């Protein structure tokens, strides 16, 4: 179905317009960057409304990409920019927007370089949206690489990472993955021209080319996912980040790898790459266990959230390898809730950490004195571990069911890892809730009512997603 309204281009371009307005916004002397922040929030909200509108036009039953838009870009080589969506990608776009909105809630009081932060955030959002609406290999690749720049700038400038070397090694490492994908894309283009993402899984080559192309594609996507040893770069950056928006944006990067696998995975996986896939699964499971254990012993709450994110991303990766349509749909729904949960948790925990650093308040027992924060953290943590408060509960059931069926031993290790990260998060929650006389927090350290209302809204979305993942879609 082709789109007469270029809605997809609009949701990609709108943040870019937001960049322009943010750049030209005036800085108040007493609240520098406030106008830029407001522009950013407004742009996000406008985009969310557009996404909602697109949901209403979309046919949820159809498995193919819809609302196709095609723009001729280069004549030689012949490259078009092509956009298209389905329910899965649109859900992820919405989740990215909401996650960034949660991150913005955490940086609303930031006064240092706020304008720059808003500009780069909008740029990242535009690139991420473009990535998810890309419908052919070149469009996909362009946005796959393009999102690295604003990400790098956000992490480098605002991440407050102590070891600067980790930041640009992080960029180079992801850049290498993008280059590898570029070589594969060029090869595919050379053989078959500019193919759409729907056609790619069915392409056939000689065995040698199969190995090279799919191997390169797998490596490129794997580089984004924190599977051992690729986890090191993202973990060393994430563990050091103190800005919630920077953390959230970084933690969205593995999502691009998983999405890539879902779109590109050939059916069936040609030999010998199916062996490669099996090895990735094994390494993935080992990584889950390993990260879960480290998260369990690590006292840094950022690392705990990182371990949670890693374990779940690898779970989705393993689910993506199954190739089952129902599992993929469940991954989409689960990812939606997962992203909302981790971004909200990160924002709230960073609020506590910031209070700890700036006002010398011990974080142990912090939640005893701050009711709103306590409620929000409790709900989100319980939802995060898989209790029936969000779509994660049901959707992970189907994903795990499939994985257990394929290999029960690996499945049990997977479950063990999930239990470990669940215990890790619960441990952290209880550390914050256990009354500590040394904690000097009081009601003034709680989150403000508007922010609390926003998180209530997020919790509402999570709860409704448990009942029906597409509850907000009103059929026309």
């Amino acid at each position, binding site marked *: 179905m082709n789109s007469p309204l270029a809605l997809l281009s609009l949701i990609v371009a709108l943040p870019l317009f937001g960049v322009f307005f943010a750049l030209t916004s005036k800085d108040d002397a007493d609240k520098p960057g406030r106008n830029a922040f407001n522009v950013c929030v407004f742009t996000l909200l406008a985009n969310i409304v557009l996404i909602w509108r697109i949901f209403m036009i979309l046919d949820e039953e159809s498995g193919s990409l819809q609302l196709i838009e095609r723009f001729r870009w280069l004549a030689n080589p012949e490259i078009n920019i092509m956009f298209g969506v389905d329910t899965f990608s649109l859900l992820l776009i919405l989740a990215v927007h909401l996650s960034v909105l949660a991150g913005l809630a955490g940086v609303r009081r930031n006064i240092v370089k706020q304008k720059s932060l808003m500009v780069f955030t909008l740029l990242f959002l535009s690139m991420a949206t473009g990535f998810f609406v890309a419908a052919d290999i070149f469009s996909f690749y362009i946005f796959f690489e393009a999102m690295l720049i604003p990400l790098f700038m956000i992490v480098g400038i605002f991440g407050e990472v102590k070891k600067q070397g980790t930041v640009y090694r992080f960029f180079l490492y992801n850049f290498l993955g993008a280059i590898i994908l570029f070589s594969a894309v060029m090869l595919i283009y050379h053989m078959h021209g500019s193919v759409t993402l729907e056609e790619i899984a069915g392409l056939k080559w000689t065995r040698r080319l199969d190995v090279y192309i799919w191997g390169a594609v797998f490596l490129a996507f794997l580089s984004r996912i924190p599977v051992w040893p690729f986890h090191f770069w993202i973990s060393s950056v994430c563990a050091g980040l103190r800005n919630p928006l920077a953390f959230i944006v970084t933690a969205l990067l593995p999502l691009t790898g998983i999405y890539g696998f879902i779109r590109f995975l050939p059916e069936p996986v040609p030999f010998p790459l199916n062996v490669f896939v099996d090895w990735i699964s094994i390494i993935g499971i080992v990584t889950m266990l390993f990260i879960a254990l480290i998260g369990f012993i690590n006292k840094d709450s950022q690392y705990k959230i990182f371990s949670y994110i890693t374990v779940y991303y690898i779970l989705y990766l393993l689910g993506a390898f199954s190739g089952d349509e129902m599992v993929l749909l469940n991954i989409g729904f689960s990812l939606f809730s997962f992203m909302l949960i981790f971004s909200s948790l990160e924002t709230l925990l960073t609020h506590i950490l910031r209070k700890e650093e700036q006002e010398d308040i011990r974080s142990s027992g912090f939640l005893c004195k701050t009711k709103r924060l306590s409620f929000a953290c409790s709900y989100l943590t319980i939802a995060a571990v898989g209790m029936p408060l969000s779509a994660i509960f049901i959707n992970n059931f189907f994903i795990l069911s*499939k994985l257990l069926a394929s290999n029960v031993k690996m499945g049990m290790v997977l479950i063990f890892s999930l239990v470990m990260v669940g215990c890790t998060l619960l441990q952290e929650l209880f550390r914050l809730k256990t009354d500590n006389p040394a904690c000097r927090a009081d009601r003034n350290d709680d989150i403000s009512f508007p922010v609390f209302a926003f998180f209530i809204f997020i919790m509402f979305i999570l709860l409704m997603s448990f009942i029906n993942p597409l509850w907000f879609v009103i059929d026309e």
Partner: protein
Amino acid sequence: MISQLFFSLIAIALLALLVVQGRRRRIWSFLLLAACGFLMYELLLSFREDAFSSFVYQWGGFQNLQFSLHLSGTPEIDKILLSLLGSAVGLVYLNSVYWGENHKLTVNTAVLLNVAAFILLLCSKDFVQLMVGSSCLAILGFYLIPDMESKRKFIFYGFLSEMALFTALAVVYEVIPSMNLQDMEQFSTIGRHKDLVALLILLCVFCQAGMLGFQNHILDLQTLTFNRIMIFCLTSLPLSSLVIFTKLRPLLVASQYTEPVLSIWLAAAAAWCLVAMLLTDSLKAAAIYLNLLFYAFSLAFLGVCPDGLDRVINFFPAALLLNILLMMVNNAASNELYVSRLGGLARHIRFTFVLSLAGVAAFIGSFLNVPAVAEKIAFIYLAVVLTGLSSIMSRVFLGKANADDKVMALLKNPSPLYWLPLIGVFVWLGWEYPFWRNKMFYAFFGAFILLLLIAPFRFCGRWSDDEDVQEADWFNDLYQIVILAPLRLLGRVLWVLVDFIVIERSIIGTVAQTSDFLVSGLQKLQGSVRQSYLLMIALGLAVLLLNMGYEYYE
């Protein structure tokens, strides 16, 4: 009626939680009691009229995966709910009059919500509703516990049990691609990993019921008041274990290991509870062990009587009775918890003593009317409970008077608010189970009296002051040593060895050093000196000449 009951309970609870503010919470508490009573009456009426309603609501899912909310009544379900609702009414009444409870309205609301969650669980016809009901009970139980350390343990065990259930059902789902519990019968014929599924379900059940090895979270409830212990044990998470055990029985019987594991574990749990009851000095701990024993019995009972859930729920008032008896003693002795600081109270609070004996008699009578196949289990249970109870009661009522003067001075029998309803319960139990006609009643009661008088286990009292025994948390220590400490060590080793040494020092270090070497090497070659110019240009010219020579001679 079930659906109406369900929604009414939620509506009343939410109204009480969100709307009611201010001082008149006790009055609202009694109003809640009246509402419960009314609902129970309505349920009874519909049960007698055989009016079993059906309610199905398609609530979720997407594409070809739809889930339904079932709240349909059957005679068995209605019967179970009547018994539970009766117990709930009793608990609500107790909360409303119990002086030790400061948050009467909140706790009563929790009772109502627990019952609603139980309805959800009981009426479940698919996996989703089963898991949701069980999780709801876990979450509600979490909010009943005020102490953070107890909450922590509770939520960990609750989480573990939910994950075990989740995993077991996930394995089953892929083999039998249906979420309906009715389709589980096929599992014994076509199922895979039957033993694993059975073990996981047993793990879930044991965690929820607090069986041996998984009892820490329930033992920690000693920090709660008596009423909350009763609410927790009889309307919260442990109750969920019975329903799960019943509903998922077809999956359990598919494995050959279920019966031996169940037998051994429950026997061990019973033995452990008995020993603990004999050694413990705390009345609250004793109450908890009695509840754990009850659940061990219930599971064993359900093991031999698959359709016996309604019978088990019928035993709840009896189980409640024992808790109330201990609570009464605590109440009478000015809230003195420790058995070693009581003793010889029979002379001073005779009425309470007689009430206790009557309670024990009613308790014995309740358990004699069991199917033949479960008789042995019931008798063993009675024997164990009576042994433990007799030890405590003999030390409290008949032993040496160890209470201090203040306690002795303030000893008083319970007020009519307590004993009147209790007598009503005795009468009802007597009417429901005419135990006085049963010879075994006299045998058990006689044996109890004998044990009470002889007190063969009074020597266990010497460990009353021994902190190592009283404060012992052996299972917790075992978990720390066997599971948590190795995990922590493994985590540290992996972090240091793999992340730090292998990746950071070796891989990254090597790459960084290699590139630094190449860069510095080139820098040296390219200094602004004549030699570097000469070298570079000579290289270029050499290549040009070589190429020329090669092409020419080719």
